């Protein structure tokens, strides 16, 4: 997989600009077990970047490492020109990064409305009503259920809420960990449309992890492939979709 000869030339990311998010040589451990073995990755302003990889490759670990929880043992993470490698997690959130994490992590004993309020916490509720209206338009399902407790929502509704909560802070960089997990195909389509629109209309930068490689690579400008804690391939979405190894490992039977 990591054979250099078959690796496409690194996609020409928007030249001449420093990336919005830049990850260099990041190593993360759980106890003595290494989960990320030195990851290099860039996300430029205005891009949709995706990362695909098998179960246990370390994708979610990377998402959480960006927020310093767990914290990487080596390497640096730079966001908007600032070194955030050692910054406390909540301060990183205040820089305008939001995450819809693996497992959704809805606050179970808070209502949908309160969960959305939590998402807006860093903005001190400026334009709260406006943002609420916006996410309710994107996910009308949530609007009907504003007073329902998060823990009692269906899996798909929780997924929508997790994304909506992340959007409530109007992030400059949105991290999505498997946004399509557990959703009906129609809803997956809807969510991917939302992501595309946010990116095209508002210029929101998106970094998403997906099992749904076909959809993700079609949506993304660029993509990375992670295998057991290492980036093995990278390229434009189109390049990766056409790459025989990617096709064999992640798209077989999956290309609908």
């Amino acid at each position, binding site marked *: 997989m990591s054979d250099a000869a078959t690796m496409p030339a690194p996609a020409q990311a928007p030249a001449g600009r420093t990336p919005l998010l830049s990850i260099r040589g990041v190593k993360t451990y759980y106890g003595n077990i290494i989960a990320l073995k030195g990851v290099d990755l860039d996300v430029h302003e205005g891009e949709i970047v995706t990362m695909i990889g098998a179960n246990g490759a370390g994708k979610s670990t990377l998402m959480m490492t960006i*927020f310093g*929880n767990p914290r990487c043992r080596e390497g640096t993470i730079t966001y908007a020109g600032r070194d955030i490698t050692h910054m*406390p*997690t*909540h301060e990183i*959130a*205040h820089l305008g990064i*939001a*995450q819809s*994490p693996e497992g959704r*992590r*809805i*606050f*179970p*004993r*808070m209502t949908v409305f*309160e969960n959305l*309020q*939590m*998402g807006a*916490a*860093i903005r001190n*509720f400026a334009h709260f009503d406006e943002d609420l209206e916006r996410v309710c338009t994107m996910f009308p399902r949530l609007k009907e259920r504003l007073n329902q407790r998060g*823990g*009692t929502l269906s899996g798909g509704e929780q997924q929508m809420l997790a994304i909506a*909560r992340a959007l409530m*802070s109007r992030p400059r960089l949105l991290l999505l960990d498997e946004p399509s997990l557990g959703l009906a195909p129609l809803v997956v389509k809807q969510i991917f449309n939302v992501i595309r629109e946010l990116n095209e209309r508002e210029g929101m930068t998106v970094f998403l992890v997906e099992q749904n490689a076909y959809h993700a690579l079609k949506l993304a400008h660029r993509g990375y492939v992670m295998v057991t804690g290492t980036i093995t391939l990278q390229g434009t979405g189109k390049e990766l979709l056409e790459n025989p190894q990617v096709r064999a490992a992640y798209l077989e039977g999956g290309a609908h």
Partner: protein
Amino acid sequence: MEVFVQQLINGLTLGSIYGLIAIGYTMVFGIIGMINFAHGDVFMLSAFIALMLFLFVTAWLGIGSIAIALIIVMIGAMLLTSLWGWTLERMAYRPLRGSFRLAPLISAIGVSIFLSNFVQVSQGARNKPIPPMVRDVIVLFERDGYAVALSYKQIIIMLTTAVLLAIFWYVVQKTPLGRAQRACEQDRRMAALVGIDVDRTISLTFVMGASLAAVAGTMYLLYYGVVSFADGFVPGVKAFTAAVLGGIGSLPGAVLGGLIIGLVETLWSAYFSIEYKDVAAFSLLAIVLIFMPSGILGRPEVEKV
């Protein structure tokens, strides 16, 4: 009948005090899963702070009005005790966060011993009285020579408790701080991801618990007129029992538990033997826990997430 009504009044008064202390146990448990064994001693300390403030306000400042003096004393005690609560969390508990589970518990026992010894050494081992005050009573009704009385003190204690609980409830349910506390309680990691400073929120939880304990301390002093360095233990254990009885982690549960323990204690004393009133309270806890393992208003462990 007369005795019953009288004990009901006494029980609710005592229960108010237990409830105020119990909230401190339940909130801290909710947010960091630790029993703060030192909380009873924080309560005792607050009663001493209230005592000193009271002497200061009446003797030095010469404030004659009891009502104004009490308000100043209570607010002052809340502020100073909060500062203690904040400091103890910073020094004794925060450094141990992320350490093994028993560590903060042991530290809390240490803090408890420290506080009671500190007060014993600095204030002496004897009971400290305040001059008697607010001695008026309202006789509700009288029959066969037995008068059912409601004292002004009891009215003050129940009203103050009710008002503070209402304010406190509003803070927890409706303000960003309360929401942050509940978020940390439900998923600390996610709370940090949405930008909540978890450490600060935990500190503020200790501060809120300590300030309610200070209200209880002030009311205790007003009610009994004396306080000693050892007075943290029994009310502390009773309030802890109340918190567990009501369902640890549940705020209404803490208040309900406090009232129940207060009532059981006073009614038992009146009808059975006063020596066994604590046995009655703890037996009730045991019985309730057999049938409702997570307390009266506690939520069961399993939850669909």
